[in-house]
């Protein structure tokens, strides 16, 4: 099978599935190695961008999904009543950013950084499946450790957790003892 045909099939698979599809599924369906599939999909991502296609391939972890481009948002909104869901509250966003950078982390540690209680924010984030329990700390009370989910990567357009914007370098401020 030639590369052109493989690309065509991958596009068809992504289109049909709609949801994120893993590299593993793609490669096993087509019967090629994961490495080959990976390279071909990266080619496709570039081609889609180069040709200014109406859809793009978004990636997070080892999953791929088709979506429209942000710059077309205005046009597509004319088809749909805009999504009514509100963005996250500041409290939830702050809590989420602490978890994202410091995971795994307990509620007490988060609250120590924010200086306020976080129960409500944590519940919202759990409910929206942006964070999950990733374990328990082996100490009194066995406090829950929180971490981010795939849904988090998807909703924030991150390929992986390493892609988080860098935390502002504090060496500039030149303060001792900040970890």
């Amino acid at each position, binding site marked *: 099978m030639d590369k052109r045909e493989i690309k065509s099939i991958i596009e068809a698979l992504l289109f049909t599935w709609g*949801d994120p599809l893993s590299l593993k599924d793609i490669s096993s369906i087509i019967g090629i190695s994961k490495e080959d599939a990976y390279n071909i999909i990266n080619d496709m991502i570039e081609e889609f961008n180069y040709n200014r296609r109406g859809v793009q391939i978004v990636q997070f972890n080892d999953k791929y999904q088709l979506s429209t481009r942000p710059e077309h948002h205005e046009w597509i909104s004319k088809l749909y009543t805009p999504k009514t869901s509100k963005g996250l509250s500041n409290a939830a966003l702050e809590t989420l950013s602490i978890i994202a950078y410091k995971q795994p982390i307990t509620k007490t540690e988060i609250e120590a950084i924010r200086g306020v209680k976080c129960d409500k924010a944590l519940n919202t984030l759990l409910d929206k499946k942006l964070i999950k329990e990733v374990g328990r700390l082996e100490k009194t009370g066995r406090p829950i450790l929180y971490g981010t989910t795939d849904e988090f990567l998807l909703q924030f357009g991150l390929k992986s957790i390493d892609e988080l914007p860098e935390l502002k370098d504090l060496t500039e401020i030149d303060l001792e003892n900040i970890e």
Partner: protein
Amino acid sequence: MRYNVVLEIFEGPLDLLLHLIDKNEVDIRDIPISKITEQYLEYLEKMKDLDLEITSEFLLMAATLLEIKSKMLLPKKKDEGKQLEIEEVDPREDLVKKLIDYKRFKEAAIKLKEREELQRKLFFKPREEIDLDIRNENLELENVKIEDLFKIFCNIMKRNNIETRKINIHEIKRDEISIEESMKRIEKILNEKKTVTFSELFDKNSSRIYIVVTFLSLLELMRLKVIAIKQEKNFGNIYITLKC
């Protein structure tokens, strides 16, 4: 009296302090503590005026600020007896560390928000229906009861995220009552009747939050020695009276 003033809402005492530091254009490492403390307390006063509930975190920070302020006023100790120079610990150090740490995440949260907004502009599509999906086989209703339909619906809704569920519950309103309001209410009731029982303080339709707030305000009133509580036997009625 209520003022129609829009007070900026802060996420907590650290957030408020960062705002004050910004507003005064001072160095975070060298906070003019008495000036900032003064403004901090002013803000809490404004919150009080507006009947906003001041959480314990804000009060705790006020205490911390006052403590730092008093430490700063102390004359610097000189260990004259010793030759070794002991470096003085700046009383502000812990607070500054906390503020800087919090600030990093606050800024990261802003960047995340930008990403979220961009991402919300993307549209996806639902999965295609496929002949091979055997779930689409003929519909047999013989053994399906309305309860099954109900269960199926519940499962779908659970599988989904909160946005879809919201449609169902938008008519359910949360009781908004603060502990302060609740305390005033109880005092008023007690001024009218000498003694009330705990259960008389709400009716059958009171929400759980309402009951919890009522209970918390009773505890607070007890702490302030405004009321006395008596229970004749375990699980018996709790009688509440005004202390005076």
